[in-house]
């Protein structure tokens, strides 16, 4: 049986959670974009990002944001002289932009990576490839998420 004290404790906890939601920053969208831009700058160390070479495959309409298949393929011969050094996957609307950073080399044979991500809300997903010649290539895909990951926190 729930005692009065326990009920009050639970009610206070629920109120605190509601309060946290009410205190969500109204500029959250701008902050997320800045977080993504700074994450990209950190990954590329300030080098300009070029479009092309990278193929990012994400379903355009996501029923369940908790498990989203993500596949990245980079057009590269994967030789000792010319190969992909790293592949980074980032998202725009998650509390943190990073999803996965993979480091590979000529021994991979093929620059292909597949994984499963959590995506909190409709927005951009970005794959960035770092090549051995120091250039960075990327592809951006916009996705629509119907059931969000981390929904209960109102973090979106």
């Amino acid at each position, binding site marked *: 049986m729930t005692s009065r004290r326990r009920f009050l404790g639970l009610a206070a*906890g629920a109120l605190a959670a509601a309060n946290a939601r009410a205190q969500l920053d109204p500029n959250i969208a701008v902050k997320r974009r800045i977080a993504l831009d700074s994450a990209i700058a950190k990954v590329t160390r300030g080098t300009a990002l070029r479009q092309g070479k990278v193929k990012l495959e994400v379903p355009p309409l996501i029923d369940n944001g908790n498990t989203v298949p993500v596949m990245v393929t980079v057009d590269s011969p994967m030789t000792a002289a010319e190969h992909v050094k790293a592949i980074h996957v980032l998202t725009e609307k998650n509390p*943190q932009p990073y999803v996965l950073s993979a480091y590979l080399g000529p021994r991979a044979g093929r620059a292909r990576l597949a994984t499963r991500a959590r995506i909190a809300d409709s927005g951009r997903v970005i794959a960035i490839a770092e090549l051995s010649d120091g250039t960075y290539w990327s592809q951006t895909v916009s996705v629509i998420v119907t059931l969000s990951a981390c929904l209960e926190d109102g973090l979106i």
Partner: protein
Amino acid sequence: MARVAVTLPASAKRGEVIEIRTLAQHAMENGFRHTQTGELIPRDIITRFSCSYNGVEIFRAELHPALAANPLITFTTVAAESGTLEFRWSGDNGYVATYSAQLSVA
């Protein structure tokens, strides 16, 4: 004991590109969720994954909370010589899982 599953061919031709699929059983608690009473559930995820082929590291990944539970990582490698592939996952709260597989190259 943490459960992991790795799929790769048992044998391959020399120079062939083989696909390796790895899966680790882990909740990947992202650290942004709350309990019903409003307490934050602490983060508990796998943070690093690496694969070495006869002692040489061929693939490494940094995992973040935005990876789905039971993280799946699929990558490729060139079958260079017969030997052992060692897989290692490590993460929060001292989580470590290892797996090793044999590959025979003809």
